[in-house]
């Protein structure tokens, strides 16, 4: 075997090991969720779907899932609306201080999430928004808007402004030209941004945990609290459901819009 082929094989072995490392916790959770034991154990002893039926029959979990979905949906709609408009302004209109605006729009990505969380906790207490859905939704829009802006600006930069210009020349108004020409062209970027926003909101712990009021609970914070309370296979079961949903969602997104281009 030549040195070059040996190197290629070593590289492949390393890559395979790292992919194994990346998938290890995922596989372990999935296995543990089928165990008959009441404590978490891998490899599983026996086979049961008990933990899945337990989690899906648990009113607290169902409420948390519903609340998380609603919050993520509202946050995504807000972030996409504000984000697409802002991206369009930054790329197509020469706004003075555009660099500063775009730095500001990206700031919530750079700031530690826990700092955003505690800052909002204090601020909402002062303006009496603490424990409200509106406050929580605003917080989630702030942390998701950068993802929308990033994906949509990337898409906008890839299309020719002359196309929209042509529509204007042919008599279309600004909004008509945007909705019939530009928006269909940047749809993959908008879809990727929306998907990012939804996932980031749905997964968030470090902001939500400081802002949830009485009777409010998101799924990740519920799992977080359950783990701190004590580990058992029902947590593995709900985690397995999330693994399957994430996997399916990602595969669909890749086939549909070539998701990896926007990461």
């Amino acid at each position: 075997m030549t040195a070059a082929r040996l190197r290629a094989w070593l590289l492949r072995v390393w890559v395979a090991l790292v992919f194994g490392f990346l998938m290890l916790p995922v596989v372990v959770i999935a296995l543990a969720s089928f165990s008959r034991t009441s404590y978490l154990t891998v490899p599983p002893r026996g086979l049961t779907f008990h933990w899945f039926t337990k989690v899906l029959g648990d009113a607290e979990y169902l409420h948390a899932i519903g609340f998380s979905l609603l919050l993520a949906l509202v946050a995504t709609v807000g972030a996409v609306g504000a984000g697409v408009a802002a991206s369009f302004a930054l790329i197509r209109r020469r706004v003075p201080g555009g660099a500063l605006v775009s730095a500001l729009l990206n700031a919530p990505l750079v700031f530690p999430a826990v700092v955003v969380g505690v800052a909002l906790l204090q601020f909402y207490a002062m303006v009496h928004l603490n424990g409200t859905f509106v406050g929580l939704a605003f917080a989630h829009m702030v942390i998701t808007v950068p993802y929308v802006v990033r994906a949509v600006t990337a898409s906008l930069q890839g299309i020719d402004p002359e196309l929209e210009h042509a529509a204007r020349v042919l008599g279309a108004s600004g909004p008509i030209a945007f909705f019939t020409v530009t928006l269909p062209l940047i749809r993959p970027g908008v879809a990727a941004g929306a998907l990012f926003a939804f996932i980031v909101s749905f997964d968030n712990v470090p902001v939500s945990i400081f802002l949830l009021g009485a009777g409010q609970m998101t799924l990740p914070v519920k799992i977080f609290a359950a783990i701190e309370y004590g580990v058992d296979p029902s947590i593995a079961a709900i985690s397995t459901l999330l693994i399957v949903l994430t996997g399916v969602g990602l595969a669909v997104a890749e086939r549909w819009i070539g998701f990896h281009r926007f990461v």
Partner: protein
Amino acid sequence: MRHGSGWWLLAPALLLLLVAFVLPVGMMVPMSFRPYVPLVGITDGFTARYYTRLLTDSYYLEIIGRTLALGFTVTLSTLIVGYPVAFFLARTPSRWRNWLTILVVFPLMLNLVVRTFGWIALLAQNGLVNQALHALGVVESPVKLLFNFAGLLIAMTHVFLPFMVLVLIGAIQNIPRDVEDAARVLGASWGSTFCRVTLPLSAPGILSGSILVFVLSISALVTPRLLGGPTYQVMSTLIYDEFLQRLNWPAGSAQALLLTIMVLALVYLSGRLARRTGARA
């Protein structure tokens, strides 16, 4: 007119950021100088004691040092583990490349609490790692991997590896293959080509990937909290306890602002460094 419409389009996003980001973060500055009296609460007055305590008390200095040490080792380990993977994904002609990239993205999209939970199952006293080590005869009794540096390093390497790999793929793809071929034609060995051509040309990616992972690791809350518990503290878990357990908002604000300053300083310095070397990160 065109300027005007630009601002109207920016208005919703800017208003949102003002109300739910700029103002709240700004309000932390005055809050961090207010005195907190136990059993009374936050009182009027001015004190800088939460800052002096943070920067002089050995308890806090240890936590700050641990946070930075963890950030540094996590960054280094993701770089070492991830570089060959990024190199492979950037260069492979395989038609599976996009799907392999998605496999790197998958853990990133998977709920962080779920990933951390997987590591609890792996690293516990009777977890899979200890079972494997015992079966292989490496250790006699279980190794302690939770609530300490080793466990956090392993789990956080897993959590932040995708970021490093994705940034490095982009950087390595930008290197023209001709430059490497030229070095080989001129007689350089593979090793010397890699060390003197490929590696330096991917430096912008290494820099931006490292800054990203470092910043994310020193800000991380969920993984350090669940794997470190309430005793093995880092800065973000300290802030968490200050706000939710001790209810000392002024002290927590000072800690949060220090963490923010550290993060912003790093981002700023790396930007300057990238510009000075003429590299675009």
